[in-house]
């Protein structure tokens, strides 16, 4: 893809170095002369934006680690000390905490872009898989990092997540204890989480190098999903892509800055400003927003299937929801890469995005929350007074409490008029649609999209005509735009 190197060492030193370690040549070929499809849109700037996010998190994180105290007695207060007493500590801590959210926002856009334009398809399978590896490492790093401030959500989030490992048969409990370094979330847990939180970003950086390497072997995909045929299809990375990436990165930084400086608490949970208390469980334990869809899938399974408990089922589906991305390149059977030319798949994709957002909403709600119900609660009763005879009582209400209240009134009136007696009651519950059921439907679509829609649709859908070259695709787009204008 990259073709023969065009790097020409200009100085004596460069020539000397080039014969010993051609690092300048590599940088030149990768980031200066590297041919870039000329039809890339702004979704292709998120690679650069993610690079900024990773560097920002590592740099701010290293500074925070100089001031943070990983001990259950001091961790919470040391974060406050950073915010109050360390010069610019408030800024560095804000950037790091907000930066995690920005990182995930960018990575989700990057991933959905890959999904829409078919960037996972041959020959980019390894590139995609490396990306999924980075994403998995990111979620682990973010989870570990969220525990460090040692607030209520830190503690209880860690408790819930480590507890899920006990669902694994036989080895589950030993794994849980091994992760926690004891029988409960405690100082050893915090210490090892801190250590791993510092380690994993460098592992991410390593995989990012592989990701970029793989990218430069296959070349970038593009919105039309057409392979680059000749030089007319491309522009050199510098200055074309560089300047576009820089501009988009600054736009992203503006949004980033708005959160850092004006909405620092908007993305966090107030409970994490309460120091961790192992004796007091918060009413709703929720992870950070970027993990909510997976949390919803985890909790969606409230029934057991044979030997698989509800807990294990949830854990398997949550792992599967990310795991399925690894085999995505072989699930999609379509010959056409970009959904720009797949009129049906495009709609299934849009629903998929909506489903992911709805799963996020579900993850933030209490699973028992009633979204809607058909009908009302009805309490039917037969009352047999000791004096003889029989009376029927019926009360309805929108909630069980309301129905009970209405029923109690009738009962009291009946007892007062007919005297003591025997009462038999039955409660008729209306059909209630709760968050759990909604999550189940959404989870079903999530997996169906990968396991049914993409494999089957790829064989049955009639794609639109795909232009032969990128240059022709641009010509067609321009023609259409001109027609529209006229």
């Amino acid at each position, binding site marked *: 893809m990259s073709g023969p190197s065009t790097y020409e060492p200009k100085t004596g030193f460069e020539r000397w170095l080039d014969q010993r370690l051609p690092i300048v040549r590599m940088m030149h070929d990768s980031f200066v002369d590297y041919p870039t499809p000329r*039809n*890339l849109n702004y979704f292709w700037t998120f690679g650069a934006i993610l690079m900024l996010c990773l560097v920002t998190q590592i740099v701010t994180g290293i500074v925070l680690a100089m001031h943070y105290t990983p001990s259950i007695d001091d961790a919470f207060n040391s974060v406050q000390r950073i915010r109050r007493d360390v010069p610019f500590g408030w800024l560095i801590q804000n950037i790091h905490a907000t930066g995690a959210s920005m990182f995930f926002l960018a990575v989700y856009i990057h991933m959905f872009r890959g999904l829409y334009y078919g960037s996972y398809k041959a020959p980019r399978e390894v590139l995609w898989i490396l990306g999924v590896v980075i994403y998995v490492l990111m979620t682990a790093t973010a989870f570990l990092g969220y525990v460090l401030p040692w607030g209520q959500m830190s503690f209880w989030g860690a408790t819930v997540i480590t507890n899920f490992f006990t669902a694994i048969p036989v080895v589950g409990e030993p794994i849980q204890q091994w992760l926690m370094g004891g029988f409960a979330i405690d100082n050893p847990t915090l210490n090892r989480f801190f250590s791993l939180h510092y380690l994993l970003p460098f592992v991410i950086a390593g995989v990012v190098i592989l990701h970029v390497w793989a990218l430069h072997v296959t070349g970038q995909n593009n919105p039309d999903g057409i392979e680059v045929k000749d030089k007319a299809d491309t522009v050199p990375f510098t200055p*074309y892509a560089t300047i576009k990436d820089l501009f988009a990165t600054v736009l992203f930084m503006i949004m980033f800055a*708005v959160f850092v400086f004006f909405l*620092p608490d908007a993305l966090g949970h*107030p409970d994490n400003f309460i120091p961790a208390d192992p004796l007091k469980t918060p009413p709703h334990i929720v992870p950070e927003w970027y993990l909510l869809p997976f949390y919803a899938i985890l909790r969606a399974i409230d029934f057991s299937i044979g030997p698989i408990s509800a807990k294990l089922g949830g854990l398997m589906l949550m792992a599967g929801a990310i795991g399925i991305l690894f085999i995505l390149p072989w699930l999609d059977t379509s010959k056409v890469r970009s959904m720009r030319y797949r009129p049906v798949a495009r709609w299934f994709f849009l629903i998929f995005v909506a489903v992911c957002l709805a799963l996020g909403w579900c993850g933030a709600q209490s699973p028992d929350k009633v979204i*809607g119900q*058909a009908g009302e609660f009805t309490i039917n009763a037969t009352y047999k007074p000791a004096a003889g005879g029989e009376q029927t009582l019926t009360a309805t209400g929108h909630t069980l409490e309301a129905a009970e209240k209405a029923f109690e009134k009738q009962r009291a009136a009946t007892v007062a008029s007919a005297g003591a007696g025997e009462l038999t009651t039955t409660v008729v519950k209306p059909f209630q649609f709760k968050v759990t059921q909604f999550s189940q439907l959404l989870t079903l679509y999530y997996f169906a999209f990968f396991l049914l829609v993409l494999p089957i649709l790829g064989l049955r859908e009639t794609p639109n005509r795909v232009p032969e070259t990128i240059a022709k695709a641009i010509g067609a787009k321009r023609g259409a735009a001109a027609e529209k204008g006229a």
Partner: protein
Amino acid sequence: MVRGFLIAAALLIAPAAAFAAGDAKHPHKEHWSFDGPFGTFEQAEVQRGFQVYKEVCAACHTMDNLTYRHLGEPGGPFAAAGKWDAASGSWKDVHLGAPHHGSRYVPAPDNPFVRAIAEQYEITEIDPTTGQEITRKGRPADRFVSPYTNPYQAKAIHGVAPPDLSVITRARHDGANYLYALLTGYADPPEGETAPGGATNLHYNPYFAGGWISMPPQLMPDRVVYEDGTEATPEQMARDVTAFLAWAGEPKQIIRKKTGFATLIYLLILGGLLYAAYRQVWRDVKH
């Protein structure tokens, strides 16, 4: 599929009640001096708030993450400015508030107002030379003195440990409005409602989750006598102490907002220049 349609129909017909029993009443949205990107604290307001905290709240609540010196930092309730007199090695013309021409902020450890506040407290510590327990006057670097000798005492005395107030406005959803509503929201319980388990040490407050709170109503009229002569109504005291606690939750918030504006202006200009450069670079390329 049919079931799906039924559900959809049911959703349209019967939206469920938005709240479950036991949910707290939503606080009314108050107007605060520190609201929004331009918001800031009025020094008189946070000074009065500190007085309420000191004379009322501090009897039961800790505030572990504050030191007396924080009170004198720029933006704090007792920030003061003056002129440094090199000859005598001391600060001259020290006055509360932001510096005006010629003067600058007095470093918090030298701030006479802060020193006076700190000196009102007795600090108990171990003398490292003798190993004996001693007491000394407070210094600006000391943390706010706790009303308890150890963390267990709070729970032992009150049954429930009163929460630390260092970050209280950030530790509750819609913190400032919630706090104000809670402090002024004590009421008679609705007919027929009693404290859980018939407890007699709980007080009804619809803004508190569950409706029953351990803290008795505190802000009776004239509970404090304001040094600046402001009338100490319950609403006034609640407003002032809320402002003080909102400041204490993040003493750097004013500098945060100011830095934010500078950063945004910088980024907007940079973005504009980059956009112009981008147009220039791509002007002859079809894409």
